[in-house]
Protein backbone atom coordinates (compact mmCIF):
# COMPACT_ATOMS: atom_id res chain seq x y z
CA UNK A 1 0.00 0.00 0.00
CA UNK A 2 1.33 3.43 -0.92
CA UNK A 3 2.01 5.92 1.81
CA UNK A 4 0.05 8.62 0.01
CA UNK A 5 -2.52 7.99 -2.64
CA UNK A 6 -4.29 10.88 -4.31
CA UNK A 7 -7.22 9.82 -6.43
CA UNK A 8 -9.08 11.96 -8.88
CA UNK A 9 -8.57 15.23 -7.05
CA UNK A 10 -10.65 18.18 -8.24
CA UNK A 11 -10.25 21.65 -6.75
CA UNK A 12 -12.33 24.66 -7.74
CA UNK A 13 -12.10 28.18 -6.34
CA UNK A 14 -14.99 30.62 -6.31
CA UNK A 15 -13.57 34.05 -7.06
CA UNK A 16 -15.15 37.42 -7.74
CA UNK A 17 -14.57 36.99 -11.43
CA UNK A 18 -15.68 33.44 -11.91
CA UNK A 19 -14.88 29.86 -10.98
CA UNK A 20 -11.28 28.75 -11.36
CA UNK A 21 -10.61 25.05 -11.77
CA UNK A 22 -7.15 24.66 -10.24
CA UNK A 23 -6.98 20.84 -10.33
CA UNK A 24 -8.96 18.64 -12.70
CA UNK A 25 -8.84 15.04 -11.69
CA UNK A 26 -5.23 14.49 -10.63
CA UNK A 27 -4.14 11.10 -9.36
CA UNK A 28 -0.73 10.14 -8.06
CA UNK A 29 0.97 8.23 -5.26
CA UNK A 30 3.99 8.50 -3.05
CA UNK A 31 5.62 5.35 -1.73
CA UNK A 32 7.28 4.84 1.61
CA UNK A 33 10.74 6.44 1.63
CA UNK A 34 10.53 8.02 -1.82
CA UNK A 35 10.60 11.59 -3.01
CA UNK A 36 8.02 12.51 -5.62
CA UNK A 37 8.77 15.72 -7.46
CA UNK A 38 5.83 17.79 -8.68
CA UNK A 39 6.81 20.18 -11.44
CA UNK A 40 4.85 22.86 -13.23
CA UNK A 41 4.60 26.55 -14.06
CA UNK A 42 2.70 29.08 -11.97
CA UNK A 43 -0.96 28.28 -12.28
CA UNK A 44 -0.36 24.60 -12.94
CA UNK A 45 -2.02 23.77 -9.64
CA UNK A 46 1.04 22.35 -7.91
CA UNK A 47 0.72 24.49 -4.77
CA UNK A 48 -2.99 23.81 -4.67
CA UNK A 49 -2.14 20.11 -4.67
CA UNK A 50 0.02 20.42 -1.58
CA UNK A 51 -2.54 22.52 0.29
CA UNK A 52 -5.36 20.22 -0.73
CA UNK A 53 -3.62 17.16 0.69
CA UNK A 54 -3.21 18.79 4.06
CA UNK A 55 -6.65 20.40 3.74
CA UNK A 56 -5.54 23.98 4.19
CA UNK A 57 -7.27 25.50 1.21
CA UNK A 58 -9.23 28.73 1.81
CA UNK A 59 -12.95 28.50 2.49
CA UNK A 60 -13.83 29.47 -1.06
CA UNK A 61 -12.37 26.22 -2.38
CA UNK A 62 -14.44 23.23 -3.39
CA UNK A 63 -12.63 19.89 -3.21
CA UNK A 64 -13.61 16.51 -4.59
CA UNK A 65 -11.76 13.25 -4.73
CA UNK A 66 -9.84 11.30 -2.15
CA UNK A 67 -6.51 11.61 -0.44
CA UNK A 68 -5.43 8.43 1.33
CA UNK A 69 -2.64 8.59 3.86
CA UNK A 70 -1.79 5.07 4.94
CA UNK A 71 -5.24 4.04 3.84
CA UNK A 72 -7.06 6.78 5.79
CA UNK A 73 -9.04 9.21 3.65
CA UNK A 74 -8.02 12.67 4.80
CA UNK A 75 -10.94 14.25 2.96
CA UNK A 76 -13.50 12.65 5.20
CA UNK A 77 -11.79 13.00 8.54
CA UNK A 78 -13.32 15.28 11.17
CA UNK A 79 -11.38 18.45 11.85
CA UNK A 80 -10.11 17.36 15.26
CA UNK A 81 -8.52 14.15 13.95
CA UNK A 82 -7.08 16.00 11.01
CA UNK A 83 -5.49 18.48 13.35
CA UNK A 84 -3.70 15.66 15.14
CA UNK A 85 -2.35 14.28 11.90
CA UNK A 86 -1.01 17.64 10.78
CA UNK A 87 2.52 18.18 11.97
CA UNK A 88 2.76 14.63 13.23
CA UNK A 89 2.15 12.32 10.30
CA UNK A 90 2.22 14.81 7.47
CA UNK A 91 3.84 18.23 7.61
CA UNK A 92 4.50 21.12 5.27
CA UNK A 93 7.27 23.59 4.56
CA UNK A 94 6.24 26.78 2.79
CA UNK A 95 7.82 28.96 0.18
CA UNK A 96 8.52 32.24 1.95
CA UNK A 97 10.82 31.92 4.95
CA UNK A 98 10.29 35.58 5.76
CA UNK A 99 6.63 35.19 6.57
CA UNK A 100 6.10 31.63 7.73
CA UNK A 101 7.35 32.08 11.29
CA UNK A 102 5.41 34.04 13.90
CA UNK A 103 7.28 37.35 14.33
CA UNK A 104 6.29 37.71 17.97
CA UNK A 105 7.37 34.21 19.04
CA UNK A 106 10.91 33.06 19.67
CA UNK A 107 12.28 30.17 17.62
CA UNK A 108 12.34 27.94 20.67
CA UNK A 109 8.70 28.75 21.42
CA UNK A 110 7.69 27.53 17.97
CA UNK A 111 9.16 24.14 18.83
CA UNK A 112 7.83 24.05 22.38
CA UNK A 113 4.35 24.88 21.14
CA UNK A 114 4.50 22.16 18.50
CA UNK A 115 5.80 19.44 20.76
CA UNK A 116 3.59 20.15 23.71
CA UNK A 117 0.54 20.35 21.45
CA UNK A 118 1.20 16.88 20.11
CA UNK A 119 2.48 15.43 23.37
CA UNK A 120 5.98 14.82 22.08
CA UNK A 121 7.50 16.51 25.09
CA UNK A 122 6.29 16.80 28.64
CA UNK A 123 8.10 19.94 29.68
CA UNK A 124 9.41 23.09 28.06
CA UNK A 125 12.98 22.12 28.85
CA UNK A 126 12.57 18.74 27.21
CA UNK A 127 11.15 20.32 24.08
CA UNK A 128 13.95 22.86 23.87
CA UNK A 129 16.53 20.11 24.31
CA UNK A 130 15.15 18.12 21.40
CA UNK A 131 14.77 21.27 19.31
CA UNK A 132 18.33 22.33 19.99
CA UNK A 133 19.73 19.02 18.83
CA UNK A 134 17.57 19.04 15.74
CA UNK A 135 18.64 22.55 14.79
CA UNK A 136 22.31 21.70 15.24
CA UNK A 137 21.91 18.82 12.85
CA UNK A 138 20.26 21.10 10.38
CA UNK A 139 23.14 23.54 10.60
CA UNK A 140 21.62 26.17 12.89
CA UNK A 141 23.40 27.00 16.17
CA UNK A 142 21.42 25.99 19.23
CA UNK A 143 21.69 29.52 20.64
CA UNK A 144 19.26 30.68 17.97
CA UNK A 145 16.43 29.15 19.95
CA UNK A 146 16.30 32.32 22.00
CA UNK A 147 16.06 34.62 19.01
CA UNK A 148 13.12 36.03 17.19
CA UNK A 149 12.61 35.18 13.51
CA UNK A 150 13.65 38.61 12.24
CA UNK A 151 17.10 38.07 13.75
CA UNK A 152 17.77 35.09 11.50
CA UNK A 153 18.73 35.04 7.84
CA UNK A 154 16.39 33.66 5.19
CA UNK A 155 18.34 30.45 4.90
CA UNK A 156 18.35 29.93 8.64
CA UNK A 157 14.63 30.60 8.84
CA UNK A 158 13.99 28.00 6.18
CA UNK A 159 16.09 25.50 8.10
CA UNK A 160 13.99 26.27 11.18
CA UNK A 161 10.85 25.68 9.11
CA UNK A 162 12.27 22.36 7.94
CA UNK A 163 13.14 21.54 11.53
CA UNK A 164 9.56 22.22 12.59
CA UNK A 165 8.35 19.99 9.80
CA UNK A 166 10.65 17.14 10.86
CA UNK A 167 10.44 17.50 14.63
CA UNK A 168 7.72 14.93 15.10
CA UNK A 169 9.21 12.54 12.57
CA UNK A 170 6.32 12.58 10.11
CA UNK A 171 5.86 9.97 7.41
CA UNK A 172 5.36 12.58 4.69
CA UNK A 173 6.74 16.08 4.26
CA UNK A 174 5.25 18.40 1.66
CA UNK A 175 7.83 20.91 0.46
CA UNK A 176 6.14 23.72 -1.45
CA UNK A 177 8.74 25.65 -3.46
CA UNK A 178 10.98 25.80 -0.44
CA UNK A 179 13.95 27.32 -2.24
CA UNK A 180 12.20 29.67 -4.65
CA UNK A 181 12.55 32.69 -2.38
CA UNK A 182 16.20 32.07 -1.61
CA UNK A 183 19.25 33.19 -3.52
CA UNK A 184 21.36 30.69 -5.43
CA UNK A 185 23.96 30.00 -2.77
CA UNK A 186 21.43 29.46 -0.01
CA UNK A 187 19.28 27.39 -2.33
CA UNK A 188 22.23 25.09 -2.90
CA UNK A 189 22.67 24.69 0.86
CA UNK A 190 19.02 23.84 1.39
CA UNK A 191 18.97 21.35 -1.45
CA UNK A 192 22.01 19.61 -0.03
CA UNK A 193 20.26 19.57 3.32
CA UNK A 194 17.20 17.99 1.74
CA UNK A 195 19.30 15.29 0.15
CA UNK A 196 20.96 14.59 3.47
CA UNK A 197 17.61 14.36 5.23
CA UNK A 198 16.43 11.95 2.60
CA UNK A 199 19.48 9.77 3.18
CA UNK A 200 19.36 9.84 6.97
CA UNK A 201 15.70 9.92 7.88
CA UNK A 202 14.24 8.20 4.83
CA UNK A 203 11.19 10.50 5.12
CA UNK A 204 8.89 10.50 2.11
CA UNK A 205 8.53 13.85 0.43
CA UNK A 206 6.31 15.63 -2.02
CA UNK A 207 8.78 18.07 -3.55
CA UNK A 208 6.89 20.84 -5.33
CA UNK A 209 8.86 23.16 -7.60
CA UNK A 210 8.97 24.85 -10.98
CA UNK A 211 12.62 23.97 -11.42
CA UNK A 212 13.19 20.73 -13.32
CA UNK A 213 16.87 20.81 -12.45
CA UNK A 214 16.20 20.55 -8.72
CA UNK A 215 13.79 17.70 -9.29
CA UNK A 216 16.42 15.78 -11.16
CA UNK A 217 18.72 16.06 -8.16
CA UNK A 218 16.35 15.34 -5.35
CA UNK A 219 13.45 13.23 -6.55
CA UNK A 220 12.99 9.53 -7.31
CA UNK A 221 9.92 9.99 -9.45
CA UNK A 222 8.47 13.09 -11.01
CA UNK A 223 4.93 14.23 -11.84
CA UNK A 224 4.60 16.98 -14.41
CA UNK A 225 1.51 19.14 -14.01
CA UNK A 226 0.07 21.44 -16.61
CA UNK A 227 -3.02 23.60 -16.13
CA UNK A 228 -4.39 21.44 -13.36
CA UNK A 229 -3.83 18.10 -15.09
CA UNK A 230 -1.15 15.47 -15.01
CA UNK A 231 0.94 15.53 -18.19
CA UNK A 232 3.52 12.93 -17.36
CA UNK A 233 4.61 10.80 -14.43
CA UNK A 234 7.57 8.47 -14.15
CA UNK A 235 11.05 7.66 -12.87
CA UNK A 236 12.94 10.92 -12.77
CA UNK A 237 16.01 9.87 -14.74
CA UNK A 238 13.93 8.36 -17.49
CA UNK A 239 11.65 11.37 -17.77
CA UNK A 240 14.59 13.75 -17.80
CA UNK A 241 16.63 11.85 -20.36
CA UNK A 242 13.71 10.85 -22.54
CA UNK A 243 10.70 13.11 -22.05
CA UNK A 244 7.51 11.94 -23.72
CA UNK A 245 5.05 14.80 -23.21
CA UNK A 246 5.81 17.89 -25.32
CA UNK A 247 5.42 20.06 -22.26
CA UNK A 248 8.02 18.08 -20.34
CA UNK A 249 10.30 18.42 -23.31
CA UNK A 250 9.78 22.15 -23.42
CA UNK A 251 10.41 22.43 -19.68
CA UNK A 252 13.69 20.60 -19.97
CA UNK A 253 14.79 22.75 -22.84
CA UNK A 254 14.22 25.89 -20.82
CA UNK A 255 16.49 24.86 -17.96
CA UNK A 256 20.10 25.95 -18.43
CA UNK A 257 22.65 23.26 -17.75
CA UNK A 258 26.39 23.53 -17.70
CA UNK A 259 27.86 21.52 -20.52
CA UNK A 260 24.45 21.06 -22.03
CA UNK A 261 23.04 22.39 -25.22
CA UNK A 262 23.29 26.13 -25.69
CA UNK A 263 19.97 25.98 -27.39
CA UNK A 264 17.70 27.48 -24.71
CA UNK A 265 14.17 27.83 -25.88
CA UNK A 266 11.53 29.45 -23.69
CA UNK A 267 8.12 27.90 -24.02
CA UNK A 268 6.06 30.01 -26.40
CA UNK A 269 2.72 31.40 -25.29
CA UNK A 270 1.40 31.80 -21.78
CA UNK A 271 -0.22 29.53 -19.23
CA UNK A 272 -3.97 29.36 -19.85
CA UNK A 273 -6.58 31.39 -18.00
CA UNK A 274 -7.88 28.85 -15.54
CA UNK A 275 -11.36 30.36 -15.52
CA UNK A 276 -11.71 29.29 -19.10
CA UNK A 277 -9.19 26.61 -19.98
CA UNK A 278 -8.73 25.55 -23.60
CA UNK A 279 -10.83 22.60 -24.74
CA UNK A 280 -9.32 19.21 -25.39
CA UNK A 281 -5.67 19.00 -24.40
CA UNK A 282 -4.93 22.09 -22.39
CA UNK A 283 -1.43 22.40 -23.78
CA UNK A 284 -2.49 22.42 -27.43
CA UNK A 285 -2.23 26.21 -28.03
CA UNK A 286 1.47 26.07 -27.21
CA UNK A 287 2.31 22.61 -28.52
CA UNK A 288 4.34 22.21 -31.72
CA UNK A 289 2.81 18.76 -32.30
CA UNK A 290 -0.80 19.73 -31.81
CA UNK A 291 -3.32 17.98 -34.07
CA UNK A 292 -7.00 18.49 -34.61
CA UNK A 293 -7.72 15.70 -32.16
CA UNK A 294 -5.67 17.50 -29.52
CA UNK A 295 -7.87 20.54 -29.92
CA UNK A 296 -11.08 18.60 -29.45
CA UNK A 297 -10.56 15.74 -27.10
CA UNK A 298 -8.82 15.54 -23.73
CA UNK A 299 -6.00 12.99 -23.92
CA UNK A 300 -6.34 10.09 -21.48
CA UNK A 301 -3.54 9.14 -19.12
CA UNK A 302 -1.97 5.98 -20.54
CA UNK A 303 0.99 3.85 -19.67
CA UNK A 304 3.97 4.02 -21.97
CA UNK A 305 7.09 2.12 -21.07
CA UNK A 306 6.74 2.19 -17.30
CA UNK A 307 5.45 5.79 -17.32
CA UNK A 308 2.15 7.56 -17.39
CA UNK A 309 1.62 10.20 -20.07
CA UNK A 310 -1.39 12.15 -21.31
CA UNK A 311 -0.82 12.97 -24.95
CA UNK A 312 -2.58 11.96 -28.12
CA UNK A 313 0.60 12.10 -30.16
CA UNK A 314 3.10 10.54 -27.84
CA UNK A 315 0.89 8.36 -25.73
Amino acid sequence: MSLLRVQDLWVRYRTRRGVVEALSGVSLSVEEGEVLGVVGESGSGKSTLGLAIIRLLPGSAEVRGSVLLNGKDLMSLPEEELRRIRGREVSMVFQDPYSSLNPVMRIGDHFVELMMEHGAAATREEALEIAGELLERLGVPRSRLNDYPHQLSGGQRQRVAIGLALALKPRLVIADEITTALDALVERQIIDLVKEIKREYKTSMLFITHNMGLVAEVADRVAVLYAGRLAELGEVHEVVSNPLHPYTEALLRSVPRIGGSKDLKPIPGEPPDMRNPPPGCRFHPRCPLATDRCRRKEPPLVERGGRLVACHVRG
Partner: protein
Amino acid sequence: MRLPKGFAEWGLVVGTALVAMFTALALVGEALVGQRAVSNIVVVDGKVYEVPPLLPPGSSLTIGGREFAFIMGTDQLGRDVFARVVGGARFVLTVAFLSTVISAVVGTILGLLSGYIGGLFDRALSLVMDSMYAFPGLILAIAIAALLGVGVLNISLAIAVVYIPSYYRMVRGVVLSLKSAPFVEAAVVAGASSWSIVTRHILPNVVPQIVSLLPVSFADAIITEAGLTFLGLGIEPPTPDWGFDLNKGRQFFLAGYWWIGVFPGLMIILSVLGFLLVGESLNELLNPRKVEA
Protein backbone atom coordinates in the same frame (compact mmCIF):
# COMPACT_ATOMS: atom_id res chain seq x y z
CA MET B 1 -25.48 51.21 -16.70
CA ARG B 2 -25.69 48.34 -14.30
CA LEU B 3 -26.81 48.06 -10.73
CA PRO B 4 -24.17 48.70 -8.07
CA LYS B 5 -22.57 45.57 -6.76
CA GLY B 6 -21.06 45.14 -3.35
CA PHE B 7 -20.55 47.40 -0.39
CA ALA B 8 -18.21 49.87 -2.07
CA GLU B 9 -20.40 50.57 -5.07
CA TRP B 10 -23.60 50.86 -3.07
CA GLY B 11 -21.80 53.02 -0.57
CA LEU B 12 -20.70 55.39 -3.30
CA VAL B 13 -24.20 55.67 -4.72
CA VAL B 14 -25.91 56.23 -1.39
CA GLY B 15 -23.16 58.55 -0.20
CA THR B 16 -23.22 60.68 -3.31
CA ALA B 17 -27.00 60.96 -3.10
CA LEU B 18 -26.78 62.14 0.49
CA VAL B 19 -23.99 64.58 -0.26
CA ALA B 20 -25.91 66.00 -3.19
CA MET B 21 -29.02 66.43 -1.08
CA PHE B 22 -27.19 68.23 1.68
CA THR B 23 -25.29 70.43 -0.73
CA ALA B 24 -28.58 71.46 -2.28
CA LEU B 25 -30.00 72.16 1.16
CA ALA B 26 -26.98 74.20 2.07
CA LEU B 27 -27.22 76.28 -1.05
CA VAL B 28 -30.95 76.97 -1.23
CA GLY B 29 -32.39 75.64 2.00
CA GLU B 30 -32.35 78.74 4.06
CA ALA B 31 -33.75 80.83 1.25
CA LEU B 32 -36.63 78.40 0.91
CA VAL B 33 -37.67 78.26 4.52
CA GLY B 34 -36.86 81.84 5.33
CA GLN B 35 -38.22 83.33 8.47
CA ARG B 36 -39.84 80.24 9.85
CA ALA B 37 -36.43 78.98 10.95
CA VAL B 38 -35.57 81.95 13.07
CA SER B 39 -38.81 83.26 14.43
CA ASN B 40 -42.25 82.10 15.31
CA ILE B 41 -43.89 85.18 13.90
CA VAL B 42 -46.09 84.54 10.91
CA VAL B 43 -47.73 87.24 8.84
CA VAL B 44 -50.96 86.45 7.02
CA ASP B 45 -52.84 89.13 5.16
CA GLY B 46 -51.03 91.81 7.06
CA LYS B 47 -51.97 90.39 10.45
CA VAL B 48 -49.26 89.18 12.81
CA TYR B 49 -49.60 85.83 14.52
CA GLU B 50 -47.38 83.88 16.89
CA VAL B 51 -46.93 80.18 16.39
CA PRO B 52 -47.28 78.31 19.67
CA PRO B 53 -44.24 76.46 21.01
CA LEU B 54 -43.76 72.74 21.50
CA LEU B 55 -46.19 71.53 18.89
CA PRO B 56 -45.67 67.82 18.17
CA PRO B 57 -44.62 66.61 14.72
CA GLY B 58 -47.40 66.27 12.22
CA SER B 59 -49.46 69.09 13.63
CA SER B 60 -51.07 71.58 11.38
CA LEU B 61 -52.62 74.92 12.28
CA THR B 62 -55.02 77.15 10.53
CA ILE B 63 -53.76 80.68 10.90
CA GLY B 64 -55.74 83.52 9.44
CA GLY B 65 -57.41 81.19 7.00
CA ARG B 66 -54.20 79.56 5.76
CA GLU B 67 -53.13 76.08 6.63
CA PHE B 68 -49.65 75.68 8.12
CA ALA B 69 -48.13 72.25 8.48
CA PHE B 70 -45.40 71.50 10.98
CA ILE B 71 -44.19 68.11 9.96
CA MET B 72 -41.46 68.10 12.58
CA GLY B 73 -43.28 70.19 15.13
CA THR B 74 -42.15 73.42 16.71
CA ASP B 75 -39.42 74.09 19.21
CA GLN B 76 -39.55 75.80 22.56
CA LEU B 77 -39.79 79.23 20.92
CA GLY B 78 -42.45 78.25 18.43
CA ARG B 79 -40.10 78.00 15.47
CA ASP B 80 -40.73 75.37 12.83
CA VAL B 81 -38.29 72.51 13.50
CA PHE B 82 -38.35 71.36 9.90
CA ALA B 83 -37.38 74.86 8.79
CA ARG B 84 -34.57 74.96 11.29
CA VAL B 85 -33.35 71.57 10.23
CA VAL B 86 -33.29 72.55 6.57
CA GLY B 87 -31.86 75.98 7.27
CA GLY B 88 -29.18 74.60 9.53
CA ALA B 89 -27.52 72.95 6.58
CA ARG B 90 -26.15 76.27 5.38
CA PHE B 91 -24.18 77.07 8.48
CA VAL B 92 -22.96 73.55 9.12
CA LEU B 93 -21.85 72.78 5.61
CA THR B 94 -20.33 76.21 5.06
CA VAL B 95 -18.22 75.79 8.16
CA ALA B 96 -17.27 72.26 7.21
CA PHE B 97 -16.36 73.35 3.69
CA LEU B 98 -14.30 76.33 4.80
CA SER B 99 -12.41 74.45 7.47
CA THR B 100 -11.67 71.53 5.17
CA VAL B 101 -10.35 73.83 2.47
CA ILE B 102 -8.20 75.79 4.91
CA SER B 103 -6.72 72.73 6.58
CA ALA B 104 -6.11 71.03 3.24
CA VAL B 105 -4.37 74.05 1.73
CA VAL B 106 -2.29 74.93 4.78
CA GLY B 107 -1.48 71.32 5.59
CA THR B 108 -0.45 70.58 2.02
CA ILE B 109 1.77 73.62 1.71
CA LEU B 110 3.45 72.90 5.02
CA GLY B 111 3.83 69.26 4.12
CA LEU B 112 5.37 70.06 0.76
CA LEU B 113 7.79 72.53 2.29
CA SER B 114 8.69 70.27 5.13
CA GLY B 115 9.23 67.22 3.00
CA TYR B 116 11.11 69.03 0.30
CA ILE B 117 13.36 71.23 2.43
CA GLY B 118 14.04 68.63 5.05
CA GLY B 119 16.67 69.16 7.70
CA LEU B 120 16.05 70.97 10.96
CA PHE B 121 13.02 72.77 9.61
CA ASP B 122 11.40 69.47 8.82
CA ARG B 123 12.28 67.90 12.15
CA ALA B 124 10.99 70.88 14.12
CA LEU B 125 7.78 71.21 12.18
CA SER B 126 7.16 67.47 12.39
CA LEU B 127 7.53 67.56 16.13
CA VAL B 128 5.01 70.38 16.35
CA MET B 129 2.59 68.65 14.01
CA ASP B 130 2.90 65.29 15.74
CA SER B 131 2.21 66.91 19.07
CA MET B 132 -0.85 68.62 17.67
CA TYR B 133 -2.00 65.39 16.09
CA ALA B 134 -1.74 63.59 19.42
CA PHE B 135 -3.72 66.28 21.22
CA PRO B 136 -7.48 65.75 21.49
CA GLY B 137 -8.91 67.61 18.52
CA LEU B 138 -12.13 68.74 20.07
CA ILE B 139 -10.37 70.30 23.04
CA LEU B 140 -8.00 72.17 20.75
CA ALA B 141 -10.97 73.43 18.76
CA ILE B 142 -12.77 74.45 21.93
CA ALA B 143 -9.80 76.45 23.11
CA ILE B 144 -9.43 78.28 19.82
CA ALA B 145 -13.12 78.84 19.30
CA ALA B 146 -13.50 80.17 22.82
CA LEU B 147 -10.89 82.79 22.10
CA LEU B 148 -11.89 83.73 18.60
CA GLY B 149 -15.56 84.12 19.31
CA VAL B 150 -18.62 83.58 17.15
CA GLY B 151 -18.93 83.64 13.42
CA VAL B 152 -18.55 81.35 10.47
CA LEU B 153 -14.94 82.25 9.82
CA ASN B 154 -13.87 81.95 13.44
CA ILE B 155 -15.34 78.54 14.01
CA SER B 156 -14.01 77.35 10.66
CA LEU B 157 -10.53 78.43 11.66
CA ALA B 158 -10.84 76.65 14.98
CA ILE B 159 -11.76 73.40 13.26
CA ALA B 160 -9.23 73.87 10.47
CA VAL B 161 -6.33 74.00 12.90
CA VAL B 162 -7.27 70.58 14.25
CA TYR B 163 -7.02 68.86 10.87
CA ILE B 164 -3.95 70.58 9.47
CA PRO B 165 -1.63 67.89 10.89
CA SER B 166 -3.50 65.12 9.06
CA TYR B 167 -2.89 66.72 5.68
CA TYR B 168 0.62 67.70 6.65
CA ARG B 169 1.57 64.15 7.55
CA MET B 170 0.07 62.64 4.47
CA VAL B 171 1.61 65.10 2.04
CA ARG B 172 4.97 65.00 3.76
CA GLY B 173 4.93 61.23 3.57
CA VAL B 174 4.32 61.30 -0.17
CA VAL B 175 7.00 63.93 -0.71
CA LEU B 176 9.55 61.98 1.28
CA SER B 177 8.92 58.80 -0.62
CA LEU B 178 9.07 60.63 -3.92
CA LYS B 179 12.20 62.57 -3.13
CA SER B 180 14.30 59.49 -3.59
CA ALA B 181 12.36 58.23 -6.58
CA PRO B 182 14.42 57.86 -9.75
CA PHE B 183 12.31 60.16 -11.89
CA VAL B 184 12.71 62.97 -9.40
CA GLU B 185 16.44 62.44 -9.23
CA ALA B 186 16.56 62.54 -12.99
CA ALA B 187 14.75 65.86 -13.00
CA VAL B 188 17.16 67.30 -10.48
CA VAL B 189 20.15 66.12 -12.47
CA ALA B 190 18.65 67.60 -15.61
CA GLY B 191 18.67 70.94 -13.84
CA ALA B 192 14.96 71.44 -13.26
CA SER B 193 14.09 74.18 -10.81
CA SER B 194 12.63 73.28 -7.44
CA TRP B 195 9.37 74.95 -8.36
CA SER B 196 8.91 72.88 -11.47
CA ILE B 197 9.85 69.67 -9.70
CA VAL B 198 7.27 70.33 -7.07
CA THR B 199 4.52 71.32 -9.44
CA ARG B 200 5.24 68.87 -12.23
CA HIS B 201 6.37 65.77 -10.42
CA ILE B 202 5.38 65.87 -6.80
CA LEU B 203 2.05 67.63 -6.83
CA PRO B 204 0.40 65.26 -9.31
CA ASN B 205 1.22 62.37 -7.03
CA VAL B 206 0.04 64.19 -3.96
CA VAL B 207 -3.30 65.30 -5.34
CA PRO B 208 -4.96 61.85 -5.48
CA GLN B 209 -4.08 61.26 -1.86
CA ILE B 210 -5.49 64.60 -0.83
CA VAL B 211 -8.66 63.99 -2.78
CA SER B 212 -9.14 60.66 -1.05
CA LEU B 213 -8.80 62.34 2.35
CA LEU B 214 -11.18 65.22 1.62
CA PRO B 215 -14.55 63.50 2.12
CA VAL B 216 -13.60 61.94 5.44
CA SER B 217 -12.10 65.24 6.50
CA PHE B 218 -15.38 66.93 5.63
CA ALA B 219 -17.27 64.40 7.72
CA ASP B 220 -14.95 64.98 10.66
CA ALA B 221 -15.44 68.72 10.32
CA ILE B 222 -19.21 68.32 10.55
CA ILE B 223 -18.88 66.24 13.71
CA THR B 224 -16.46 68.71 15.27
CA GLU B 225 -18.69 71.62 14.35
CA ALA B 226 -21.64 69.86 15.94
CA GLY B 227 -19.60 69.32 19.08
CA LEU B 228 -18.55 72.94 19.26
CA THR B 229 -22.02 74.37 18.75
CA PHE B 230 -23.41 71.81 21.16
CA LEU B 231 -21.18 73.39 23.78
CA GLY B 232 -22.41 76.79 22.74
CA LEU B 233 -19.32 77.95 20.88
CA GLY B 234 -19.03 79.69 17.56
CA ILE B 235 -22.66 80.42 16.98
CA GLU B 236 -25.08 83.12 17.84
CA PRO B 237 -28.80 82.51 18.06
CA PRO B 238 -31.11 82.57 16.25
CA THR B 239 -28.97 81.09 13.46
CA PRO B 240 -30.23 77.56 12.88
CA ASP B 241 -27.63 74.90 13.59
CA TRP B 242 -27.99 71.22 14.29
CA GLY B 243 -25.57 70.84 17.18
CA PHE B 244 -26.89 73.93 18.92
CA ASP B 245 -30.49 72.82 18.53
CA LEU B 246 -29.59 69.41 19.86
CA ASN B 247 -28.33 70.98 23.03
CA LYS B 248 -31.42 73.10 23.40
CA GLY B 249 -33.54 70.08 22.73
CA ARG B 250 -31.74 68.11 25.41
CA GLN B 251 -33.43 69.96 28.18
CA PHE B 252 -36.87 69.21 26.78
CA PHE B 253 -36.06 65.66 25.85
CA LEU B 254 -36.76 64.00 29.12
CA ALA B 255 -39.95 65.98 29.48
CA GLY B 256 -41.17 64.25 26.40
CA TYR B 257 -40.63 66.88 23.70
CA TRP B 258 -38.24 64.70 21.78
CA TRP B 259 -38.59 66.22 18.32
CA ILE B 260 -36.63 69.37 19.05
CA GLY B 261 -33.39 67.43 19.38
CA VAL B 262 -33.97 64.21 17.49
CA PHE B 263 -34.43 65.70 14.03
CA PRO B 264 -31.32 67.91 14.02
CA GLY B 265 -29.40 64.91 15.32
CA LEU B 266 -30.63 62.80 12.42
CA MET B 267 -29.43 65.43 10.00
CA ILE B 268 -25.97 65.30 11.53
CA ILE B 269 -25.88 61.53 11.23
CA LEU B 270 -27.07 61.49 7.64
CA SER B 271 -24.72 64.20 6.45
CA VAL B 272 -21.71 62.63 8.13
CA LEU B 273 -22.67 59.20 6.84
CA GLY B 274 -23.00 60.60 3.34
CA PHE B 275 -19.50 62.03 3.23
CA LEU B 276 -18.05 59.05 5.02
CA LEU B 277 -19.55 56.62 2.54
CA VAL B 278 -18.28 58.63 -0.39
CA GLY B 279 -14.79 58.79 1.07
CA GLU B 280 -14.53 55.15 2.05
CA SER B 281 -16.13 53.80 -1.09
CA LEU B 282 -13.89 55.89 -3.31
CA ASN B 283 -10.88 54.64 -1.40
CA GLU B 284 -11.98 51.04 -1.71
CA LEU B 285 -12.73 51.28 -5.41
CA LEU B 286 -9.49 53.06 -6.27
CA ASN B 287 -7.25 51.01 -4.01
CA PRO B 288 -8.77 47.57 -3.66
CA ARG B 289 -7.43 45.65 -0.73
CA LYS B 290 -8.62 42.13 -1.30
CA VAL B 291 -6.15 39.58 -2.64
CA GLU B 292 -7.47 36.46 -4.30
CA ALA B 293 -5.91 33.18 -3.22
